[in-house]
């Protein structure tokens, strides 16, 4: 208070810093503005609109009745909709099958490719290829391979005496889930392997050497070193694959169309909106799908929190 000489430089310095900070803040938001505008317009506004539509009886191109507020009528219908229940069950089955196969096969492939050998770079490039092609193309290639009269899978199966006669893998309700899953597993396993491989490569080699000196065998090394240190990569892979599998659309729509009993949640929702034009009910389905997927995110995040403590 009493000193007059010293306080002068301090406020000036602080003022300069805040001025710089303010300028940074202003410029920062200015640079972000286009991105935020796009996100608001492409994602946030449509999401709000979906929630609103789910409380109306809006029809696309129907136009017989004017759109009006119907409260929870759509959600009430949804709870009692047996088709929707079937799609949820089918989607969860598909998710369980594909995610577990992709993870186990992907882990094996990652461990194999992680060892040093000539041509490893080429191998990794080869593994990226199924991931890069459109799902629609993968589905078409497999539809042809699974063809019931001139498909190569039936031909190989008969030649190797694995099956006695040709089978309509996709048309037969008892095998179609397996057939569709096989296509998804083929397309995605290499990618899962590559993500796990990236996780394997950051594990320091000294740990294995130290374990070997201590007399740990390969299996012990895998359980005690590889698996615990790979945990973050495994969790990321499982979360991303689960979310992807829950919203599966392409492979089912291409191979099975809108066949009753063979629709996933996304296929049913898409056909409700674009084939039948029931925008209001479709919006309620969208919200339900969104909530189901969010539920899985919450389960995973809680699981991670609990096990980390």
């Amino acid at each position, binding site marked *: 208070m009493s000193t007059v000489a010293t306080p002068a430089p301090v406020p000036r310095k602080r003022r300069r810093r805040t001025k710089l900070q303010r300028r940074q803040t202003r410029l920062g*938001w200015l640079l972000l503005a286009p*991105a935020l505008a796009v996100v608001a317009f492409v994602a946030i506004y449509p999401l709000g609109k979906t929630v609103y539509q789910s409380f109306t009886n809006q029809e696309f191109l129907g136009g017989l009745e004017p759109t009006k507020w119907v409260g929870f009528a759509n959600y009430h219908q949804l709870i009692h909709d047996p088709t929707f229940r079937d799609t949820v069950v089918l989607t969860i089955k598909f998710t369980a099958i594909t995610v577990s196969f992709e993870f186990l096969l992907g882990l094996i492939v990652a461990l194999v490719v992680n060892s040093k050998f000539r041509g490893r770079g080429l191998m990794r490039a080869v593994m990226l290829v199924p991931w*890069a092609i459109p799902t629609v193309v993968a589905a078409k290639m497999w539809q042809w391979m699974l063809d019931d009269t001139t498909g190569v899978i039936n031909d190989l199966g008969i030649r190797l005496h694995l099956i006695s006669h040709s089978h309509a893998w996709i048309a037969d309700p008892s095998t179609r889930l397996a057939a569709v899953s096989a296509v998804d597993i083929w397309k995605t396993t*290499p990618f899962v392997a590559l993500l796990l491989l990236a996780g394997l490569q950051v594990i320091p080699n000294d740990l294995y050497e130290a374990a070997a000196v201590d007399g740990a065998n390969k299996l012990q090394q895998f359980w005690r070193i590889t698996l615990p240190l790979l945990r973050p990569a495994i969790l990321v892979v499982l979360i991303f694959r689960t979310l992807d599998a829950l919203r599966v659309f392409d492979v089912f729509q291409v191979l099975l169309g809108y066949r009753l009993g063979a629709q996933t949640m996304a296929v049913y929702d898409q056909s409700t909106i674009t084939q039948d034009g029931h925008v209001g009910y479709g919006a309620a389905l969208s919200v339900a799908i969104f909530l189901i997927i969010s539920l899985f995110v919450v389960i995973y995040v809680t699981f991670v929190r609990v096990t980390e403590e």
Partner: protein
Amino acid sequence: MSTAAETTAGSVRPVSRSVRLRRNPLGRVLMKVPFWLLILAVAVYALFPFYWALRSAITPDSELFSTPLKYFPSHPTWAHFHDALSSSFFRRALLNSTIVAGSVTLLSLAIGSVAAYALGRFRFRGKSFVLYLMLSMTIFPQIAILGALYTMFSGFHIVGPISFPKLYDTPWALVFSYLIFTLPFTIWVLTSFMRALPGDLEEAAYVDGATPLQVFWKVLLPLIAPGLVTTGLLAFIAAWNEYLYAVSFIQSPSHYTVPVAIVSFTGASGNAFQFPWGTVMAATIVVTLPLILATLVLQRRILAGLTAGAVKG
């Protein structure tokens, strides 16, 4: 490399059977056999469907639909490729997809690099909120807003004389809606690239009197060029492969993108009794070849970009 290290280590410690096997040259080869069989199995599993598509594309129809199947075509032909590429329907689809995926990529890179500059090099309040918003957008299920976009694209009134244009059944509906998955990803990955740059260069430019925008354009953007290539390619692939929105928002065949065209292919010489599998397989080869080449050439960068996007999430 590793075997040499292991054998020297083995000579110090008591010699086990596997080490004895490994010392013997023949044993070393034999021990590698299961390993190479596994590698071979993985490669065949990943590549066989492509071989089969290629084999079917160059097999004439007379052989294609007759049993027993021929695993190597005895009379290879380019007829199916000719059919696919001469169909104006398929050529239009290739053009449409190029326009859509190209526009989406350029828009995402332009908007995304500017946003990444702010998020990666600036300090201000609200930044981490924006980062989390973008991250949550990357796992946003596209199906959740299908109906809303569907009605938006039929055109609506915003305020006064301004209204949202009718985009339904135009490529712009796709360019607009694809930004929802390309832009947040682009921002997220480019931000990690921006953050990794050292601060010295930027400071030197500021000392020389450069403005922030000059620093961005002349110093930072050239430095993150590899990141731009990677994210650009990933955005292009994602847009090129997209099917849900393409099949929902496009009605006229002349506006189809490649995935929709492949599904609704009837082929130039298709008849009512036999699905033109040869032509469809030729079309799939045409569509995937550029993707395969780009992936093979840029595989290191793609992997780096994907793991940056995934692991930090």
